């Protein structure tokens, strides 16, 4: 009975955004903008309600894990691939987060996208995105995961390129898709390894067999590798693409060419966390490979620090937040690396709220300033945009992990657990994350102060004179409502959820959906020192991350409000440092030179030399020429003179006689 309800609810949850997308996409022109966004939002609201229902069933009433195949997608030989749904605590946490943020971003878009000629298309894409994201998190096998994975990538491509007349948007969308494809290249090979060794793509069956494969060795060109390590690392390559881990992070800054609601929904709250979700979901595989975990940890921690530092020299408000997203994804990955999957998912949840909030608040600023994104042309906006100001501040405090905001609970747990861990690379990771905490609060408060405090630097692009101050006014209701609604969980979510998510030992919320090997169980050590969220907040000052965050805020205040000349001064004396960051460690230049131009050069070479010169000119047309030469030569033999022929005949006769006689 209840099983039946779960299935119905999950189908409603997945399909209603799809239906909304179909209606607003196909009939949008006919039914008008208003109807389009209504359809899409109603679809999302239904989906969100279903998600809440599932969450309640699974988390509160503890219904057993629902895992069932819907239909046979295809079979071949001894393999069969199904479309199926898995509803467990991890799924419901993800589904609730996704539908919640998506619903609010939908509402926000009414205001943000008003007047856009492709208004209905925008809503259609967003609902379609939600559909794919839900498939991604609700699928019960690798095929569904990959389907959702590529689907969200597609919609991301479409939405980054939403304003496709802009060259930068067109290029950014293409770059995003192709870089993600590099990740998917690893991902599909990883899936191939799974199928080759397990004979199935079904999570449950794969996880059941995983322990028996722990010692298995695979031979690739004479070198021996552990099967699970190869599998996990290949799958992680996929996660690197989607979750913007070094070196596949290069697409995320350029994804900011898309409309801001998209940056909030896709490139901050949901899609980019798919890699984090994937590693957590596949914890029963990753736990059998210390190498893979260590790689995840080191890549995550490195990104957390070094990609965060890029935000320090960025002046585009959206890109600052984008770099921040990469850095926070690094935190989540690092948590995965030390097997603290629940901490990773918890940070994913809180991050979804406060990062979406930051993006949407930034969007509100951008709308108020008529699509100005450069923070050097902002300043002092707190007077004009009070609600945006407050909500942005809440988001920034949550991101900077000050107690008792949401980010504090999740991020502090990650830093603590990495400190406890003895996975190879954990010490390095710990220092990365620790310094990262300082960098985080520095860059976000730099952005905060540059935008909302200090002198007003708004310049009208046409006339180069200051904006009439009456022109800047707080955004409309549709934009502000989601800000407020996101600010609430950004404050309270951590406080409320930290105990069930992290510190309930075997009863923890995600307990049944993730697997932690006993030797990597560093979270349990933390549980013993845990005395409730209030105590945790009150004793925060006893831990270094707190002071580092405060230091970051103070420094930002000094540099950008109190003594602005410090900033210029520092830059002058740290020229090299500044240059390295400004050039983003040279990743873009390297990729441009090596991959873009390299591939173009090689393909030109293959075409001009391989196909045109060698095959066509030499072999094909060469054969043609050779035949015509030969026939020209043969033609000479047919002179038409009888005495030529008779002469040849006599010669032949002699030759024949000679052969017979001798």
């Amino acid at each position: 009975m209840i099983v039946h309800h779960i299935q119905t609810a999950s189908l409603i949850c997945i399909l209603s955004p799809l239906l909304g997308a179909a209606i607003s996409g196909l009939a949008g022109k006919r039914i008008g903008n208003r109807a389009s966004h209504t359809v899409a939002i109603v679809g999302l609201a239904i989906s969100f309600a279903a998600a809440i229902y599932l969450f309640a069933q699974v988390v509160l009433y503890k219904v057993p894990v629902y895992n069932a195949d819907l239909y046979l997608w295809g079979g071949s030989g001894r393999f069969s691939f199904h479309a199926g749904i898995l509803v467990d605590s991890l799924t419901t946490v993800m589904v609730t987060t996704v539908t919640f943020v998506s619903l609010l971003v939908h509402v926000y878009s009414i205001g943000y996208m008003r007047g856009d000629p492709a208004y209905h298309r925008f809503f259609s894409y967003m609902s379609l995105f939600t559909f794919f994201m839900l498939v991604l998190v609700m699928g019960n096998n690798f095929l569904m995961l990959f389907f959702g994975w590529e689907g969200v990538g597609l919609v991301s491509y479409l939405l980054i390129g939403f304003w496709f007349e802009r060259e930068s948007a067109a290029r950014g969308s293409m770059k995003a898709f192709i870089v993600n494809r590099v990740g998917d290249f690893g991902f599909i090979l990883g899936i191939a390894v799974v199928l080759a060794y397990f004979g199935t793509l079904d999570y449950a069956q794969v996880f059941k067999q995983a322990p028996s494969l722990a010692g298995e060795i695979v031979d690739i060109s004479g070198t021996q590798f552990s099967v699970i390590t190869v599998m996990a690392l290949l799958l992680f390559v996929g996660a690197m693409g989607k979750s913007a881990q070094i070196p596949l992070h290069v697409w995320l800054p350029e994804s900011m060419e898309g409309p801001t609601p998209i940056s909030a929904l896709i490139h901050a709250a949901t899609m980019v966390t798919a890699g984090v979700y994937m590693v957590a979901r596949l914890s029963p595989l990753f736990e059998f490979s210390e190498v893979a975990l260590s790689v995840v940890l080191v890549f995550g921690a490195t990104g957390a620090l070094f990609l965060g530092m890029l935000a320090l020299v960025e002046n585009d408000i959206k890109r600052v937040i984008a770099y921040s997203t990469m850095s926070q994804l690094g935190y989540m990955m690092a948590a995965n690396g030390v097997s603290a999957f629940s901490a990773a998912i918890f940070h994913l949840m809180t991050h979804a709220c406060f990062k979406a909030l930051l993006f949407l608040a930034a969007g509100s600023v951008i709308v108020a300033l008529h699509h100005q994104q450069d923070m050097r042309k902002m300043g002092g906006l707190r007077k004009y945009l009070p609600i945006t100001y407050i909500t942005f501040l809440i988001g920034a405090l949550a991101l900077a992990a000050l107690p008792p905001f949401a980010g504090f609970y999740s991020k502090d747990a990650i830093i603590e657990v990495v400190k406890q861990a003895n996975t190879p690379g954990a010490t390095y990771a710990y220092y990365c994350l620790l310094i990262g905490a300082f960098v985080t609060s520095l860059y976000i408060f730099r952005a905060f102060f540059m935008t909302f405090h200090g002198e007003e630097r708004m310049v009208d692009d046409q006339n180069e004179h200051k904006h009439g101050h009456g022109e800047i006014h707080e955004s409309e209701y549709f934009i502000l409502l989601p800000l407020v609604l996101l600010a609430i969980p950004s404050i309270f979510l951590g406080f409320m959820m930290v105990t069930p998510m992290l510190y309930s030992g075997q009863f923890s919320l995600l307990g049944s959906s993730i697997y932690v090997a006993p030797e990597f169980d560093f979270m349990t050590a933390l549980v013993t020192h845990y005395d409730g969220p209030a105590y945790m907040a009150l004793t925060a000052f006893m831990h270094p991350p707190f002071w580092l965050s405060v230091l970051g805020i103070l420094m930002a205040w000094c540099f950008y409000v109190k003594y602005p000349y410090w900033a210029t001064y520092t830059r002058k004396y740290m020229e090299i440092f500044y240059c390295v960051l400004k050039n983003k460690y040279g990743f873009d230049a390297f990729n441009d030179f090596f991959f873009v131009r390299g591939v173009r050069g090689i393909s030109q070479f293959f075409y001009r030399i391989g196909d045109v010169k060698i095959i066509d000119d030499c072999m094909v047309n060469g054969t043609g020429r050779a035949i015509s030469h030969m026939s020209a030569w043969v033609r000479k033999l047919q002179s038409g003179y009888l005495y030529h022929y008779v002469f040849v005949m006599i010669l032949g006769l002699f030759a024949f006689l000679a052969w017979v006689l001798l």
Partner: protein
Amino acid sequence: MFADWPLLSLLIWLPAIGGVLVLFVGGDKHAARARFLALFFSLLNMFFCVLAYIYFDNHTYKMQFVENITWIPAYGIHYALGVDGISLPLIFLTAFTTLLVILASWKTIHQKVSQYLATFLIMQGMVIGVFAALDSLLFYIFWEGMLIPMYLSIGIWGSENRSYAAIKFFLFTFMGSALMLVALLYLRIQVNSFYILDFYEAPLSMTVQVLIFVAFLLAFAVKVPMWPVHTWLPDAHTEAPAGGSVVLAALMLKMGAYGFLRFSMPITPDASRALDWFMITLSLIAVVYIGMIAIAQKDMKKLIAYSSVSHMGFVTLGCFMLYIITAKTGNVLDAYMGLEGAMVQMISHAFGSGAMFLGFGMLYERLHTRLISNFGGIAKTMPIFSAFFIIFALSNIGLPGTSGFVGEFMIILSAFKANFWIAFSAALTLIIGAVYTLWMYKRVFYGTIANEHVAALKDIGKLEILIFSLITITIFGIGLYPAPLLDMFHVSVGHLLELSLRSKL
């Protein structure tokens, strides 16, 4: 009642008769009449295809709808037809493609209309004949016969450089087939019959097998086309009219792959086993090298053509992996997925590449240029067209949920069973395919409006929307639920595996 009808003969000869009728009825004055008549015959053929599908039995590998009439008794040549799970989907594909071509020509072909339609109707009959023939000589006749209408379609309705392309096309494909005829005659002497199924039982020594394999290879590799005998295809495609390109991509290339499955592997299993590395290498070269070449193209139609060759590399790869896989795992069941993947890829390639050619045809008809640099910003002026085109492009790069994904997915997954590096090279297509397809899409559809010709473009009309919708439904249908298609394959592929894996020595 239909079960007793000579369905296959109807499928072959109805369009041929229709073609002749259209020729007589039509003439440019009565273009409309010719069009409707052609559409009627094409729909009729679709109807018989559906019948064949309904009455087809998935549970046997035996040939169905068999017709067998002695044709030239002196030489033992029969008019023998029949289909199994490998050929029936291809026949269905042929009928469907022709329907699309006829619909697409409605507003684009204004000269020699009846001749154009007749050409494609007759070609349809011939292609179905190729897939349905059980007598090898009959097969050969259809095989060569379909070259004539194809040659004419390029030579008459093609663009500037059409005669070079038409001759190149004809010589390549014709020369390739010459040795095949020799091989068929040799086999005829061995088993005293022209039946293809009898050839399967012929005991052949290794040397003979290799010779026969090479003879077949030349014929089939040119058609597929495999590297390095692929250069006729981009030329043929660029010069051919839209319909010609569609038939080339959707149907003619499949004849080559079909040949490998129907002739090479079951008739010369030992040679196939011995030379499989060679075939796999050529296939991977097609996937990677040709894919790279596609990136370099400045001519949109050539780019699609090279992409088409690159995707056909997957088909041949899927066909010839069975030996390595079974040698490694010892389980025949593991080998299914590669072969079935190849067959799905054959079908889906028709919709990915075919649809892109069709779409390009619509652009060409409006702008009369093939250079990518002359396009730009079309998404602004033709939004509906651009939306459809992105679906085809996505199917082309194998996005899950589209038909293009199914075959690639199955082949890459089973390639891993064979060898890590084969899977690695094959999976590179995920990146390369995305690069050339999306870069092309960006330059053609995104950006600012490139010139006044683009600015003056009108979006596609109802008829074109209908055509594209048919293709789109098929693309998603196969992508989301390939099981019915795969079910048609299973038993026949099982039998094919049995034949191809045994030894004749």
